[in-house]
């Protein structure tokens, strides 16, 4: 499903990842932890092929970084949902339109757009705020919108880059509860974080990056 083999990557001449290998299975929940600059974000970007490795290979479903063509990258991204610390919402459109946008760009018919958006907004608990503008929402609600947008195309994996980084501990836990339920419904989750508290509270397989190398792997998280 996601297979990373001996991947090395340099950005602007500096090595970011070195000889990293990792497999993530269908429906798995995996944390990637490490200090700032350890290479967590770059690892995620390799998976949605925003970056291509200098050496090694990244295989995501049927797509391989070694052979993927430019025009195939959008097709890969429709199978991978991504959420960020800063939510990346379009501030000039409401919750419904933010989520619908992900369906519109892939050419989903209009009637399907409406039902799928309402459905996913119910899943993240924001059905009642569908016409609110993002600026009227709390941080946690904004992250829910971002998660809804990432989920609406029914990806097999959700990549979350520090999704709780801008949230207070209580809201962070609510987001983790949501991600847990998404995972239980069958979507794999790969979550990059340096918030060890949530890993203790929601233990899962954890990989530790240190200076661009895969330092350790903890099958049951940190205790």
């Amino acid at each position, binding site marked *: 499903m996601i297979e990373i083999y001996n991947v090395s990557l340099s950005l602007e001449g500096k090595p970011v990842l070195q000889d990293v290998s990792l497999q993530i299975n269908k429906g798995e929940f995996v944390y990637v932890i490490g200090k700032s600059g350890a290479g967590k974000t770059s690892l995620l970007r390799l998976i949605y092929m925003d970056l291509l490795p200098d050496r090694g290979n990244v295989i995501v479903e049927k797509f391989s970084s070694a052979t993927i063509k430019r025009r195939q990258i959008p097709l890969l*991204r429709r199978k991978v949902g991504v959420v960020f610390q800063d939510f990346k919402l379009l501030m000039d459109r409401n919750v419904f339109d933010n989520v619908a*946008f992900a369906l519109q760009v892939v050419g989903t018919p209009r009637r399907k757009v409406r039902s799928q958006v309402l459905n996913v907004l119910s899943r993240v608990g924001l059905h009642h705020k569908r016409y609110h503008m993002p600026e009227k929402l709390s941080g946690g609600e904004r992250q829910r919108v971002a998660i809804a947008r990432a989920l609406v195309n029914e990806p097999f994996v959700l990549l979350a880059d520090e999704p709780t980084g801008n949230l207070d501990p209580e809201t962070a836990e609510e987001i983790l509860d949501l991600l847990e339920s998404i995972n239980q419904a069958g979507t794999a989750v790969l979550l990059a974080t340096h918030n060890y508290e949530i890993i203790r509270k929601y233990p899962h397989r954890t990989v530790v990056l240190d200076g661009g190398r895969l330092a350790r792997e903890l099958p049951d998280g940190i205790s």
Partner: protein
Amino acid sequence: MRFWFLIKEGLLGLRRARFASLIALLSIALSLFLFGLFLSVAVNLSRTFGQMFRQVQLEVFVDPSLDAQALAQLRGQLAAHPAIARVDLITPEQALKEFQENFGQDLIRVLDENPLPPHFRVQVQEKYSRVEQLDQIVADLKKLPHVDDVLFQRELLRLINKYFYTGLIVAGLLGLIVFVITTLLIFNTIRLTIYARQQVIEIMRLIGASNALVKGPFIVEGIIQGVLGAVLAVGLLELVKHLFQSVFSTALYLPHPVWYALLATGALLGIVGATISVNKYLPF
């Protein structure tokens, strides 16, 4: 669905960034107006000088005592010259009328009689516009009986002969410079509006929009801004044309091709500008 999505997103983009779009539109309109102004000045000058160049007229003065029959015979002899396209007899009455129109003086009141002799106005064929050729024609005509003198605006024509093509080249170069400046201004305007919306591009890429789909709405916006800007520029040019007419009482020649050129330039620069600007945010 996708086609309408592109159109809708393009229009929404303009509406959402109303102020920026308006500024961009005005800046495009102004750039195209300057370009159009240059085009019309160039068109008008080359038309005026081209006309002088192509339709050289000679004034053939003849013995004032000739009767109508002799004048008709001489007219036939003039028309028989291979370089002559047209011969008109200007009677003393016509000559007087033209004099009054040109100089505003009534000669009869001053002199008690019409001093202007009959003469022929001869139009030379277009291919004979060089001063040397005209000198030869003048020499030929002077050999005809009863021809006293043959005059034309030799000095002016010599200057036009000498500088017309140089002028065309200089105008062409200036036009190129104005066009490059227009292009840069428009590109920069579009670049700034797209720079302000990088996040939309980033999000579209993240959620799996193809590059063509990311570019689409911006290209639609570019075309709308380019064409609307051109329409505004044409409106301004028409205004200038009317002002010119009311101030100088001379019609400014502003042919439709200038409009079409501006509309096409606006649309094309909109498309190319938007494509180049969006491409900057599409790494691969």
